[in-house]
């Protein structure tokens, strides 16, 4: 087995998962987790572009205060479809279903996930769910907002809410199956010697996210089923006119949808925990604290949901409890940020593209997380709830955090997935453009929100225009930053440098196998004898065959 060094020119392996067999059937009926990851990569990119297109139209519309570009109904459909596409069809599956699917089995040292057929089923469910949501969109759209609040969505709107809800329910089951596969794989499929203390942090964080997927997602499924039934058959569950309670919908919705933001961010944190040690040439600082903070976030994430409902008419005492618990989630997040920072201390830092994204992540996530404290503080949340402050906050976490981490991870493992390097210069440029565009887009929204501009407004008072124009200008920069990688990734498939097994000289089992890996990941199942992130003088020998 050749270890990539500066002297030996890397070569493509003769056979790998991409050329093992050919034809459309070999892809659509594949049970190989790596191919399913590639299928996911293409499909979530599609939904990301659709969602991004809607975002651009929203920002374009908000250039002027009086709602001159679209009708109010159209605008409402735009933000609904933007939210649904991005949350359920991009953010939730992004890192777990693409990078996680590709890497989890390799990282724990096994040939595949525990249930390859269920893994494929999960992709098909995703596609069916996506088809429903697209169908709802092309047949006229839905304007319930991605939060589907009853009784508006169940009794008042005349759009395709049921179809959209069915799409989300089906996509939910896709995510359940991914989570189930990850949990069983981590528990039961680890290579000899791969103890829990030797698991890469990417595995830990995906494991934590999987816990949320399997425990939370069924609740959103049943909630949306109830909503669809109320809408379709006029049975009274949430609509007060029929005797229901609209606040109950919010409880049940946020029981999933709050933890769901950790489904989105936790795997992203896992990516960062891989990139930072690799490009600092240094062990992760406080491995066990980073690992357990993921689990802590997953568990605490379930007991804070009503902080989305402080003004919704919940009990005062309940609000106090939920506010207090919300701070419990902030602590493990802070622990992670400090540990990543400390990892860089006295490292040997190489500023390549994944590292740039990781650094951007740490900074933007810090802002996103800290502004979460504003929203958890009861008296302050009353004012900024449902304003652009909330929008800015969660975009800092979701785009500044999650999407940045996803892009960083994609760059980091691109050579492993395709066997070729992406071009470094345009990639660094794209990272920079994304960073600038992102801040320009979303920072003004914090101010807008505190000024009192409510979210989901088709028209707004003129004094908010300057900040909105700034934000829209930033969005156009951001769009460029997001489109560039599409171009150079495509270019690299043909013209990229041959990567070799381990272009980053990283540790971890995925770098021990060839790039791209063979169909069954390893020629021989590895026996693990070293801690993860064993950077330093014995870095090159982590695996004994």
């Amino acid at each position, binding site marked *: 087995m050749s270890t990539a060094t500066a002297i030996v020119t890397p070569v493509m392996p003769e056979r790998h998962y991409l050329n093992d067999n050919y034809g459309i059937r070999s892809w659509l009926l594949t049970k190989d987790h790596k191919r399913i990851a590639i299928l996911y990569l293409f499909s979530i990119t599609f939904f990301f572009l659709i969602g991004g297109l809607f975002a651009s139209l929203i920002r374009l519309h908000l250039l002027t205060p009086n709602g001159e570009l679209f009708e109010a109904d159209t605008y409402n459909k735009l933000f609904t479809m933007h939210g649904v596409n991005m949350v359920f069809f991009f953010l939730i599956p992004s890192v777990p279903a693409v990078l996680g699917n590709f890497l989890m089995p390799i990282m724990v040292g096994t040939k595949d996930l525990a249930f390859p057929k269920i893994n494929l089923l999960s992709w098909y469910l995703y596609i069916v769910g996506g088809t429903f949501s697209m169908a709802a969109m092309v047949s006229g759209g839905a304007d319930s907002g991605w939060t589907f609040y009853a009784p508006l969505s169940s009794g008042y709107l005349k759009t395709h809410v049921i179809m959209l809800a069915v799409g989300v329910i089906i996509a939910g089951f896709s995510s359940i199956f991914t989570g189930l596969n990850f949990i069983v794989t981590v*528990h039961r499929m680890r290579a000899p010697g791969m103890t829990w203390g030797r698991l890469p942090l990417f595995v830990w964080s995906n494991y934590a996210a999987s816990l949320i997927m399997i*425990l939370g997602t069924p*609740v959103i499924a049943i909630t949306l089923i109830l909503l669809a039934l109320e809408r379709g058959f006029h049975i009274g569950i949430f609509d007060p006119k029929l005797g229901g309670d609209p*606040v*109950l919908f919010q*409880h*049940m919705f946020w*029981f999933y949808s709050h933890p769901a933001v950790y489904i989105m961010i936790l795997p992203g944190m896992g990516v960062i925990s891989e990139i930072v040690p690799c490009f600092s040439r240094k062990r992760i600082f406080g491995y066990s604290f980073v690992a357990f903070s993921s689990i802590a976030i997953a568990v605490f994430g*379930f*007991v804070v*949901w*009503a902080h989305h409902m402080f003004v919704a008419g*919940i*009990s*005062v*005492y*309940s609000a106090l*409890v*939920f506010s207090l618990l919300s701070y419990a989630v902030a602590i493990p997040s802070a622990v992670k940020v400090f540990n990543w920072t400390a990892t860089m201390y006295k490292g040997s830092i190489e500023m390549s593209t994944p590292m740039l994204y990781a650094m951007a992540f740490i900074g933007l996530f810090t802002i996103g997380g800290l502004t979460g404290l504003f929203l958890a503080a009861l008296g302050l949340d009353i004012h900024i709830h449902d304003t652009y402050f909330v929008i800015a906050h969660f975009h800092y976490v979701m785009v500044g955090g999650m999407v940045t981490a996803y892009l960083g991870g994609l760059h980091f493992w691109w050579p492993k997935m395709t066997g070729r390097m992406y071009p470094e210069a345009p990639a660094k440029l794209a990272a920079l453009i994304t960073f600038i565009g992102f801040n320009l887009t979303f920072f003004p929204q914090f101010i807008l929100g505190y000024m009192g501009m409510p979210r989901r407004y088709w028209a707004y008072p003129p004094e908010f225009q300057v900040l909105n124009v700034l934000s829209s200008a930033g969005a156009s920069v951001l769009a460029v930053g997001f489109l560039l990688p599409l171009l150079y990734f495509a270019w690299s498939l043909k013209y990229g440098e041959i990567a070799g097994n381990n272009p980053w000289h990283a540790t971890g089992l995925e770098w021990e196998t060839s790039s791209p890996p063979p169909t069954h990941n390893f020629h021989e199942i590895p026996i693990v004898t070293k801690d993860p992130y064993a950077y330093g003088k014995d870095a090159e020998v982590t695996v004994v065959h």
Partner: protein
Amino acid sequence: MSGHSHPTPGLYLVIFLALVVGTCLTWGIAFKDLGVWNPVVALTIAVAKALLVVLFFMHVHYSSKLTKLTISAGVFWLMIMITMSLSDYLTRTFLPQ
């Protein structure tokens, strides 16, 4: 750890009879007026029956700690959902003074 040992048909039969008795008990007690205790008793019997099914029919008594942990986690999360939702509903009428 009893490894792969599993219960015998005799034990299954005993469990089955216990479940039947439990069901009859639930049914019988439902017609006695126990005040607020009616649902409590009914649910206690239901929990006991469910435990019998889980431990023996589903072999959890003979399974690994991981399985037991998995089930406890499920029950724990269900309780979180129920109690924390109710924490809102049951304290709504209280206003600060």
